[in-house]
């Protein structure tokens, strides 16, 4: 999937009168259902404020006197559709929202689990280890040669490997299960643990991909000698399981890696990219 900016539909649940318990209950059901379908929802009441209106298309649901929506909600800059919600159940609201989403060509949510690295620039030292490490082209540098996430849709779902190699624990995956990768505070023990993981990786042979390549080549060699595909496969699986356990890398990510030759080529390209950025960065000073 290509992630692009696109038009957006926002649902407004409008309350013009005093609080009504039955309506609150309906609004909760509407809201929960709409959020689960990926829509943004604003609850507008006489009390409190919300963020200002932008150019999103709006579907405004409310109870309008004589079926006339309030004129001050009309806008020349925004496409607004008003619907009296008195006779709509949750399924009706969802169907209506989906229909308008399609007619306004607004973004359809839920096609991609938002799994991608988020850099904490308060901690990042621009060391480029993440760029060197990632084989999938997630990282790049901006015009000033500062590391940035450039292709978050190329990130492998549930794989936090790059955050493990960051010496400053500056890479977060907010949907990860535990800290500090999930965004929790970073303690001194976390930094020691991160460094330890890199050392383990080095001991295993430079990095996990290097290890994978070496093991894979050994397995290939054994396969040719022994003519036993089961043994070769077992060796690969054993290796992958070890990597998955040590680095918390999902087995499916490791299994989907390209051939050893392509891994080597991509690793080299990533390293060259990182070295070039560091070199330019240093020559500027």
């Amino acid at each position, binding site marked *: 999937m290509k992630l692009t900016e696109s038009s957006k539909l926002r649902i407004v649940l409008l309350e013009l009168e005093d609080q009504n318990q039955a309506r609150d209950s309906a609004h909760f059901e509407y809201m*929960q259902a709409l*959020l689960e379908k990926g829509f*943004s*929802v604003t609850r507008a009441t006489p009390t409190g404020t919300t963020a200002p209106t932008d150019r999103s298309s709006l579907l405004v649901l409310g109870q309008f006197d004589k079926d006339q929506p309030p004129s001050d909600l009309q806008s020349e800059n925004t496409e607004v559709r008003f619907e009296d919600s008195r006779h709509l159940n949750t399924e009706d609201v969802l169907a209506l929202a989906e229909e308008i989403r399609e007619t306004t060509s607004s973004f359809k*949510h839920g096609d991609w689990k*938002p799994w991608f690295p988020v850099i904490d620039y308060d901690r990042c*030292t621009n060391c480029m280890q993440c760029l060197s490490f990632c084989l999938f082209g997630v990282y790049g540098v901006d015009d000033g040669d500062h590391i940035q996430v450039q292709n978050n849709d190329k990130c492998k779902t549930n794989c936090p490997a790059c955050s493990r190699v960051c010496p400053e624990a500056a890479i977060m995956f907010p949907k990860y299960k535990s800290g500090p990768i*999930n965004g929790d505070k970073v303690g001194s023990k976390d930094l020691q643990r991160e460094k330890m993981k890199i050392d383990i990786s080095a001991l295993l042979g430079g990095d996990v991909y290097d290890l994978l390549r070496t093991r894979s080549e050994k397995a290939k060699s054994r396969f040719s000698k022994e003519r036993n595909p089961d043994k070769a496969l077992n060796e690969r699986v054993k290796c992958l399981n070890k990597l998955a356990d040590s680095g918390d890398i999902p087995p499916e990510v490791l299994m989907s890696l390209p051939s050893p030759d392509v891994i080597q080529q991509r690793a080299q390209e990533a390293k060259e990219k990182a070295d070039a950025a560091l070199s330019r960065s240093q020559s500027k000073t």
Partner: protein
Amino acid sequence: MSQNQESTRILYCHCNYAQIISPEVKKEVLSQLCETNQAFDAVADLCEMAARKDPELQRLTQGGSVKIAACFPRAVKWLFSGASAPLNREQTEVLNMREQSPENILKRLKAKDLNPNLPEDNKPPQASEQPGKNQ
């Protein structure tokens, strides 16, 4: 530091695309919010919006102080920042649905004061400022 904010906005994140926040916590916070007469914005998933650099994130940073019911303040800060919609540190309080109870979250959402809690800014040192670090 606590501030009095009469018109503090509320933003609720449903964290829709992962099972990291208990459904019970989300349901309790959202339903209780609906039972108040408080206006608020709700989004399906801040991570997804940040990944797409959704312009709506910029809208959500506007309009003064805000209390955000989502996850860890450090993650929320850099999700918005990464989408070119930085939050104002002095005007933002993040309530963490991964760790705080619904009761505590709702108490803070309903409170009139604001306790800004985004991590302090710390300009990142550049690689060239740290010789030997990248050797």
